[in-house]
């Protein structure tokens, strides 16, 4: 083995390893930067910022009349649409879920994990759960589904509509009939309000705002869940089983 071959081989291996190492997405920088990372040209959204007194979105059947979009800040989390947030705003742990109605993993997360979390942590005031819309461009109907779900949230029907959309995901994914899926769980009067809101497009900026926030958090897949507790941020991408989520939440809640 001559010396030149050894040197060339070594250099090639080192350069290759360096390319592999530094070629990965800049996760660490994104992590350390957190919410302070500049947003990729966020769209300017005109929205109301008046805080609301209601502590939960799910618990109340809100006035049927479409209300102006209201965004609040809860702890370190800004631009929270109270209609898509659940639990006590003073909860020690905040869970922010970036989700796409057409993504199978989001369906699993919603049906298998988040509903139990709602029952055992959100309704008991331990966790404040924020649902962010992050419709992926690769999914043809997810933006429409997000619009319907957002409109339903603004007439106080977020839970039945989200549940219907996730449970019937395969059906409306194949047919594109989001409207019919939502109509199946709402009354005619409610459905009219939802359709009016979707048609008016007044809630679209809220979805766009969620997408911008997701990009700030470097969300590159759905579902992505960001946990906030004791001033620290824990982003997690992918499915979560309830058993291990429970252990993690218990650890967060046990922190002094």
């Amino acid at each position, binding site marked *: 083995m001559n010396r030149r071959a050894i040197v060339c081989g070594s250099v090639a291996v080192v350069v290759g390893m360096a390319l592999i190492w530094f070629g990965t997405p800049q996760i660490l920088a994104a992590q350390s930067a957190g919410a302070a990372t500049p947003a990729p040209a966020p769209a300017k959204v005109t929205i109301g910022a008046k805080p609301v007194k209601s502590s939960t979105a799910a618990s109340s059947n809100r006035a049927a009349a479409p209300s102006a979009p209201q965004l609040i800040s809860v702890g370190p989390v800004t631009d929270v649409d109270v209609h898509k947030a659940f639990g006590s705003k003073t909860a020690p742990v905040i869970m922010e879920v970036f989700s796409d109605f057409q*993504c*199978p993993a989001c369906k699993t997360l919603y049906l298998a994990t988040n509903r139990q979390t709602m029952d055992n942590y959100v309704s008991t005031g331990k966790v404040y759960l924020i649902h962010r819309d992050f419709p992926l461009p690769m999914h043809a109907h997810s933006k429409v589904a997000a619009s319907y779900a957002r409109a339903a949230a603004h007439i106080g029907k977020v839970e039945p509509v989200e549940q219907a959309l996730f449970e019937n995901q395969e059906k409306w994914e194949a047919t594109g009939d989001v409207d019919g899926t939502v109509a199946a769980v709402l009354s005619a009067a409610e459905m009219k309000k939802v359709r009016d809101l979707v048609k008016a497009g007044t809630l679209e900026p809220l979805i766009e705002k969620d997408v911008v926030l997701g990009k700030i958090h470097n969300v590159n897949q759905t579902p992505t869940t960001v946990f906030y507790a004791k001033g620290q941020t824990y982003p997690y991408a992918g*499915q979560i089983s309830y*058993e291990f989520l429970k252990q993690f939440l218990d650890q967060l809640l046990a922190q002094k």
Partner: protein
Amino acid sequence: MMQSSPMNFRRVVIWIGRLVLAGIFIYAGYAKLTMGMHPRPPIGVALTFFQLSVDSYQILPPWGVQFVAKTLPFAEIALGVLLLIGFGLRIWATLITLLIVGFFAAVLRAYLLHMQINCGCFATPEPVTLQKVFEDGALAALAILMTVFAFIEARKPHPWSSESGAEKASA
């Protein structure tokens, strides 16, 4: 008579493997325990957070997930340090190779099954992509080469041993 170590190709690969893999292992273990945060979260929080990633591969039963999540970060740091020290190199190189091949198999399986999961390699959100599969494959190849070469080199007399010793060893 003492002489300098001749750096043949195998020895170069062993050295590169030791440095690269030890660095990655120590960093990966440290990242899992600190999650890149300042101040770092309690160890219990970090380890239960890592459990989410281990579980998402859907390979291990719950007790296996807990065992791996609670021991792997410490094992990675320990193996990285031992690999750097180099004493008992073949043992540590073999263990690290087995681990890396295991990681590679898990990541490849997740990629082929289109699992939308978090790699969990460095306790940060990182989807399992083709690039990640290649990264792990390259590391596995390096680890295998390093280990095989370490065994081959160990059969030869050490270049720093005395000539008489070397002759005895060769005889």
